[in-house]
């Protein structure tokens, strides 16, 4: 807790083991990690290092076999599937490499979707979706479908969708991986702006050049996490 703020993510001794063809694969081996509120942390490591597993566990898409994981004051490991869905809905804002927008919905409807699962009313949903799209600078594209948007614009819609719920953390998995370097730089600029506005961001990447744009970098190798000096 460098800047004294409360930790949003606090992981200790997290171990996750997969069984592939009878063989044990330790995707995470006693990994520990802390992210304070308002931090912009990048997790960097080569493929196969366990960073996808880490991201799945941080994002509550999966649970660890052992260890403790406290997200925004809540101990996650004991949670049921239903509670995990609720945590994902309210505390996590995902940004994926391949955008993962629903093709049949407009930008606005995509941004609204997590709010629908929160059970919010139409007027409030519309208002929050509008604000989120405004923050990523896509107000004029709100009625377009993903296919009618460029890659960079699609990723901005995805960021807006992640922001709409005011989550505890933004969790970005190779957000620039499917973009050309210029558009990628735009997205990274957006993340920096969001960081400056006070959002907690965890960015997972294999690209050192992207990783250094974060406030702090965490390395992951063979399932072990180490802080960058």
């Amino acid at each position: 807790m460098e800047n004294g703020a409360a930790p949003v993510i606090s992981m200790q001794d997290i171990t996750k083991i997969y069984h592939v063809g009878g063989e044990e694969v330790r995707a995470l081996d006693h990994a520990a990690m802390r992210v304070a509120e308002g931090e912009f942390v990048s997790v960097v490591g080569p493929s196969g290092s366990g960073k996808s597993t880490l991201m799945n566990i941080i994002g509550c898409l999966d649970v660890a076999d052992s260890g403790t994981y406290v997200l925004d004051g809540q101990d996650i490991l004991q949670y049921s599937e239903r509670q995990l869905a609720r945590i994902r809905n309210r505390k996590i804002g995902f940004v994926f490499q391949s955008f993962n927008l629903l093709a049949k919905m407009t930008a606005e409807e995509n941004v609204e979707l997590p709010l629908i699962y929160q059970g919010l009313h139409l007027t409030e949903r519309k208002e929050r979706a509008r604000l989120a799209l405004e923050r990523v600078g896509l107000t004029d594209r709100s009625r377009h479908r993903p296919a009618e948007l460029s890659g960079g614009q699609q990723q901005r819609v995805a960021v807006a969708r992640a922001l709409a719920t005011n989550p505890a953390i933004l969790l970005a998995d190779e957000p620039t991986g499917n973009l050309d370097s210029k558009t990628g730089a735009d997205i990274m600029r957006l993340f920096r702006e969001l960081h400056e506005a006070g959002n907690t961001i965890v960015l997972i990447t294999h690209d050192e050049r992207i990783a250094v744009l974060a406030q702090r970098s965490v390395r992951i190798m063979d399932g072990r996490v180490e802080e960058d000096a």
Partner: protein
Amino acid sequence: MMMFLQSLRMALGAIFSSKMRSFLTMLGIIIGVTALVVMVSLVSGASGAVTSEITSLGNDMILVSVRDDKGNPLRLADLEGIAALEEISEAAPAGSFNASAKYSYNEEYVSVTGTTAAYYTIRGLTLASGRFIRTTDVDNSAYVAVLSHDAAQELFGRADVLGERLSTGGRSFLVVGVLAEENSMMASMMSGLAVYVPFTVEASMAGEPYVTTVYASSADPDGTADAETAMNQYMLKRFDQDADAFQLINMSSITDALDSVSGTLTLLLGGIAAISLLVGGVGIMNIMLVSVTERTKEIGIRKAIGASRGSIMTQFLIEALLLSLFGCAFGLMLSWLILEAATIIAGSISFTMSLSTVVLAVGFSSAIGLIFGMYPANKAARKHPIEALRYDG
């Protein structure tokens, strides 16, 4: 509720986004519902028509035919005894023979029925003109005749034939009445070219002086069973407790039997149609399973941003239910068209969808949609978010 409305919107979106596929999926239900509704409505329409035909012949009527008079035949005077029974309103004899009737050069084969005045009300006849046989005609053996509309038409070529004469069995009869045209198909078919004459006249012409057939009407229209019992007791007493001496037919028992036959038929045909609905349900399940697999990625995304199992389940279940209900609606429309066409073709019989049939079809379709939607919806809900997100369809 909120969630439900949203699921409804999502399901509608999914259904309308691939109209052709949705229609083909519904086709099984459309055919099933159409088969169910049309078959049930046809049976109930037809049996309803037949029942009303029979009812129009006199539903509160009891018919007794004497098979063996045991040397103690029924006479006209006995009928007064029957009519005097508390449960019986009126009783009339009927004797008949077939003969050719002549008017000028025209000759037709007619059915001559000898009876009394009471016959008119028991059989529920209506006169177009003139009068029916009177008691004095019977007492005096008057050579008067009442013609059915068809008989008048065939014989005279017109219906207003009061005062005309026709000859049959070597006798000349004065036409004193003409019955109204039968609008019931069955009644006109059964009565044919009917000529009614006083019982006494017919009895002497046919050489059968005794009463062999009695028509009686029940005093209480709903109490035909009581009237039947009373009649049966009277006849048993009259013929020394020999049940084989006579045969008793209660018209309402015929309609009861008809009702039970049509009930069984409805059940049978409805059952067959229900099987085709089941097949339609399997079709929905099949397509929903394909749809769930195709939309694995979508399910993954929805789960990642916070959809619970319940909401994914609801979404797909509602989609299956809606497919089934839309199919049902199309099926009902198609059935309506078919029944309208059948009514036009059948002419006298009108086939309509009863409310209970519609409720049955809607209820059955909903059940099918829910039952066959359950498995795919559950499969969708149980997908692991990580694997679903990784899916490349």
